């Protein structure tokens, strides 16, 4: 920002607020990471201290590796998250394209109907969902989770993407039609690359709740072979004893896959290739 329009006091106040917020947001993550490397005694006696040579311990990570099948849990979480994001983006973008591009009867009504999904939490339908999954024989499968998460992510995806697709120039789509591109080719080859930043936004918004969800894995897929990481970490939370070392280690490990996905998507957020498409 130019110096002429920015006073030092104003700038420092803004930075102060941002730094404060960053600290608040990062503190739990910091605490989890730090304590996962400490012995149990140290976690309780000095929870805010960094690990010292005398308190450093990898016992939590050892427990996680030995007990339970955490590799499978990670694999399950990753499969469910990645496939759900893919389906949400694919179907969300297609629906958004139809809503933004074509004039048909009930267009606005359809858009509103899809947007209502944002306001009604999908968990209200848990009982019906469970009955449905039991009837379809999908209980204790990853498919059940993927279907539910896709349904959960679609409304917001359609809502955000259709707004973005309206901003793609009509001339560009028409140029494609004149060049003989089918409507599918126009969608996949012209429109999708242009709304990539919006797709990345939707992906990030969709990803976090899925990765962190405990509710649906617990109800729809609690079997050993379909457990997700968040459900797996519950293993160490007993009724009377909680293995804090193991819980903190499991959670620390759970941060990394989602962090990697976030980095991939946020790179797309920054890259704007629309410039120069039209004046």
């Amino acid at each position: 920002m130019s110096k002429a329009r920015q006073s030092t006091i104003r700038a420092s106040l803004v930075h102060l607020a941002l730094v404060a917020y960053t600290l608040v947001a990062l503190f739990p993550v910091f605490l989890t990471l730090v304590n996962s490397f400490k012995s149990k005694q140290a976690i309780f006696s000095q929870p805010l201290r960094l690990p010292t040579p005398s308190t450093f311990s990898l016992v939590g990570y050892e427990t996680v590796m030995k007990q339970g099948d955490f590799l499978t849990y990670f694999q399950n979480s990753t499969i469910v998250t990645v496939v759900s994001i893919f389906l949400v983006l694919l179907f969300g973008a297609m629906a958004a394209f139809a809503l933004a591009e074509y004039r048909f009867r009930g267009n606005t009504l359809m858009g509103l109907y899809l947007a209502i999904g944002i306001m009604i939490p999908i968990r209200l339908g848990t009982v019906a969902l469970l009955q449905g999954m039991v009837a379809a024989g999908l209980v204790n499968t990853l498919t059940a989770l993927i279907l539910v998460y896709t349904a959960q992510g679609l409304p917001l995806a359609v809502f955000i993407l259709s707004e973005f697709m309206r901003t793609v120039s009509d001339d560009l789509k028409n140029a494609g039609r004149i060049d003989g591109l089918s409507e599918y080719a126009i969608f996949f080859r012209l429109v999708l690359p242009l709304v990539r930043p919006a797709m990345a936004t939707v992906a990030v918004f969709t990803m976090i709740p899925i990765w962190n969800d405990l509710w649906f894995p617990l109800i729809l897929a609690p079997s050993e072979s379909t457990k997700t990481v968040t459900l797996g970490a519950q293993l160490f939370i007993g009724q009377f004893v909680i293995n804090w070392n193991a819980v903190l280690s499991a959670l620390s490990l759970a941060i990394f896959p989602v962090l990697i996905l976030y980095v991939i998507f946020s790179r797309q957020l920054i890259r704007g290739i629309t410039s120069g498409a039209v004046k």
Partner: protein
Amino acid sequence: MGSLELRNIRKSFGQLEVLKGIDLEVKDGEFVIFVGPSGCGKSTLLRSIAGLEDVTSGAVLINGRDVTVTPPAKRGITMVFQTYALYPHLSVRDNMALGLKQAGTPAAEINTRVAKATEMLSLEPYLKRRPAELSGGQRQRVAIGRALVREPELFLFDEPLSNLDAALRVQTRVEIARLHRQLGATMIYVTHDQVEAMTLADRIVVLNAGVIEQIGSPMELYNKPANMFVAGFIGSPQMNFVEAGRVCEAGATIGFRPEHLSVSPDEGRFRGKVIHAEHLGADTNLYLETENAGLITVRLFGEHRYTADDIVYATPDAAKIHRFDEKGRTIPG
């Protein structure tokens, strides 16, 4: 190769009728321009020819073949857009080649055609660049190149120069005229700029509120406008209109062009005060508040010393007065 016929084209958006029965024939090799004020339906008409809009009723024939329900890519047309509409993620070369690739043209043929278009438009240095790395004028040349490689029967231009600055506009205008001579292709061109229309067209179609007001060569429209709308739309500065009764003339309204008035400081038909003078070097435009003809514009050639508040006399050339009846139609003779 490349004739166009429109038969009673009508187009409605809901209750609003945008095109109210358009009939037009364009011969092979002709350069036809649609002009009209914004909202007159000229762009909608062009998009209907391209197949980007479905017509409500009527028929579009290209080369005698009814293409009313044919998709755009199969009509043998190509279109250049006001916003260029280049594919942002493709290089200049791929932008030009995409349509041919899509149609399954052999690679060797694509290369020859792209090379030919590149040479015609001097796009050689830019072939590997993306649209974002080009200036406005270069982008529009690429857009024209993309149209060229398709070797269409009909070129459609939708206000292609509107986004360019004045100097580039003149330059690109000359380039389009040269292309038309070189290719001998049929071109349909939409603009709201009557200078573009006058300089490029073989024939001009003047549209207003969804109907054709007049079709004719630029000079026909200038010398023999069919009605007051065309008379006022063609020519700059605009024709002066005066109520015939006020100046003792026949008809309901008379019109005379600013360039068909002579001015004298001593005597003449309309006495008036100069309220503003524009000195352009080649021309001098005077705005006069006259006693019996109201506000009129005079265009004098060369430099003149008149300034605001001077009292002058203006006299129209009697042979070049246009007369209109109550409905605004020209009274012949």
